[in-house]
């Protein structure tokens, strides 16, 4: 305990500074009223390129990512590096899609992806499915951020439970007060700290460990049996489908969309598609911390592989710098946790509360419900971590990625075409969901000896002999990728049946012009009175 005092003091001070910023954020770009979802939940829809870069970067590259990706390389070698192609291909992939989503949301005042689906497909069922999928996929993701903080606390030998509750109580309080402005402002501090820590780490650690070739040699030695610092024919398809499927899923998550909709114009989003890969580069370097830990002969605490990076820092850095690094990871957990809670709260408010409980809710009531829901969501996440094995939240997060992908036809394809019938979308969702969950259920976890939900790599040999199509007998694929293909197939078939049976189409409340609309001008922040809170204008 005593050996970690400097670390604890520095990490605590930085944490308190950031909390102060969180509370102060309510005054930043002060709106005339905070009692509107556009203000509390989307920061006034006024963020420019820089704020959006920090906000979305802080949102997508979470503390858990920074802890788990190197842990994956440490434990499994090259397969863990999928995070790099994943975060490289995602931006060109969504470049045009997000611009369309921003435009139509800006025109109609949409706050959530389910708002869009409601207006576009004319199906309240599909909108509800998108909302529920979003909430269910987001909840374990918030809990995972706590796993990131927990790993740091363990490395400092602090009893995690008490500290976690305090940290989340403070987070809940300033999110309640400041809304999206809090994580936006804190993201500046978080990302500056993370960039500082990683730049130092990738220069200082290889220097201490005898150079990059020593680091890669150590990894080669550890994975010698399987030549695991490269891919092999058994895991290369898993690598490709996981990178591709994860990229498809990333901007379907409600919290990613919240970050996008908070920006000021189409150009802000497009510029960020070129700027956000800076974080991907950072992530690639962070991933290699896993190999540095191998070279440094770092041992995780107990069986918790996620402690590998914090322990490496503790072992290699002077105490004061390790304190800064730990603060960076812990603060790195708060930004996405806040945005995720806001996104989940917005989904509940707009697509469940307003849709089913109180259709005539005023903007002020919507903001009030969202604020309270965000508190409930955070309390739920803490209870989750305190009373349920963290491993369970990791499994759920895995499932979350697979299920959020099932909203792809309604949200992403819906931005381009209404060819898919609304009943086809619903049928596809159920089909993809069922297949995805069934496949995940069949995957055992070798490490924990659980028979089910042990990963997202599905062995093809369960279905057919992979060697018959020239693949390795042990070849695996990413469950989400297969499930979303099946979803699309069913959606197409049911659409054809509906068309043949002349089933009525839903009413589309959007115009083709809405998808290319831009902000009227570079309006000063706070002047967003042109957006109606209603999901659609009267036609």
């Amino acid at each position: 305990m005593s050996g970690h005092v400097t670390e604890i003091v520095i990490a605590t001070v930085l944490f308190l500074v950031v909390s102060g910023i969180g509370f102060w954020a309510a005054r930043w770009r002060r709106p005339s009223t905070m009692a509107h979802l556009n203000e509390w939940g989307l920061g006034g829809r006024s963020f420019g390129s820089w704020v959006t870069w920090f906000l979305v970067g802080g949102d997508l590259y979470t503390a858990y990512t920074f802890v788990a990706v190197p842990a994956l390389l440490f434990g499994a070698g090259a397969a863990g590096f999928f995070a790099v192609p994943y975060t490289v291909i995602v931006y060109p992939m969504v470049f045009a899609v997000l611009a369309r989503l921003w435009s139509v949301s800006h025109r109609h005042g949409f706050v959530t992806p389910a708002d869009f689906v409601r207006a576009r497909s004319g199906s309240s069922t599909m909108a509800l499915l998108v909302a529920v999928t979003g909430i269910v996929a987001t909840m374990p993701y918030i809990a995972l951020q706590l796993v990131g903080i927990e790993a740091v606390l363990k490395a400092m030998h602090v009893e995690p439970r008490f500290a976690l509750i305090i940290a989340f109580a403070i987070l809940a309080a300033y999110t309640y007060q400041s809304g999206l402005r809090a994580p936006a402002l804190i993201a500046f501090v978080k990302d500056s700290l993370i960039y500082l820590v990683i730049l130092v780490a990738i220069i200082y650690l290889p220097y201490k460990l005898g150079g990059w070739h020593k680091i890669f040699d150590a990894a080669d030695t550890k994975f010698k049996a399987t030549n695991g610092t490269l891919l092999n024919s058994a895991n290369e398809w898993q690598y490709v489908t996981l990178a591709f499927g994860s990229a498809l899923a990333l901007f379907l998550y409600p919290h990613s969309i919240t970050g996008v909709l908070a920006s000021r114009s189409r150009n802000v989003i497009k510029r960020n598609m070129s700027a956000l890969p800076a974080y991907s580069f950072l992530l690639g370097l962070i991933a290699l911390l896993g190999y540095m830990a191998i070279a440094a002969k770092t041992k995780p605490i107990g069986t918790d592989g996620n402690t590998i990076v914090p322990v490496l820092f503790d072992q290699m850095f002077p105490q004061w710098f390790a304190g800064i690094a730990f603060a960076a990871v812990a603060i790195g957990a708060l930004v996405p946790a806040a945005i995720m809670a806001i996104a989940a709260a917005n989904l509940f408010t707009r697509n469940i509360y307003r849709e089913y409980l109180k259709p005539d809710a005023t903007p002020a009531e919507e903001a009030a419900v969202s604020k309270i829901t965000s508190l409930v969501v955070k309390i739920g996440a803490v209870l989750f971590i305190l009373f349920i094995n963290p491993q369970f939240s990791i499994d759920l997060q895995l499932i979350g990625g697979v299920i959020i992908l099932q909203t792809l036809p309604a949200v992403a394809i819906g931005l381009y075409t209404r060819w898919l019938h609304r009943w086809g979308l619903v049928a596809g969702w159920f089909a993809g969901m069922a297949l995805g969950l069934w496949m995940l259920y069949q995957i055992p976890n070798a490490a924990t000896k659980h028979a089910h939900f042990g990963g997202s790599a599905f062995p093809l040999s369960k279905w057919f002999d992979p060697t018959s199509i020239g693949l390795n007998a042990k070849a695996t694929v990413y469950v989400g990728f297969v499930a979303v293909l099946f979803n699309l197939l069913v959606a197409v078939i049911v659409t054809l049946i509906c068309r043949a049976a002349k089933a009525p189409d839903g009413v589309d409340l959007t115009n083709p012009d809405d998808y290319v609309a831009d902000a009227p001008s570079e309006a000063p922040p706070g002047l967003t009175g042109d957006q109606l809170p209603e999901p659609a204008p009267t036609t």
Partner: protein
Amino acid sequence: MAPPPVPRRPAAGSSRWHWLLVVPVVIPLLVFLYNSKDPYLFGFPRFYWLQLAFILIGVATTTLVYQLTKSGAQRR
């Protein structure tokens, strides 16, 4: 119930330039390009440095397409 006809601006939302974006999506998924150790660069095996280098292709392409399609370029 049909929406009133609206003037279409095909260039802003559906530019042909967007097809360029396929390149940086496909290249990082071609495992045979990078699944090898040689040649090394700064001590990094090819698997690691080349995949990091693909970030540059992504950034270059999105920047180019942005310059070609940004609003303001073909409006007013």
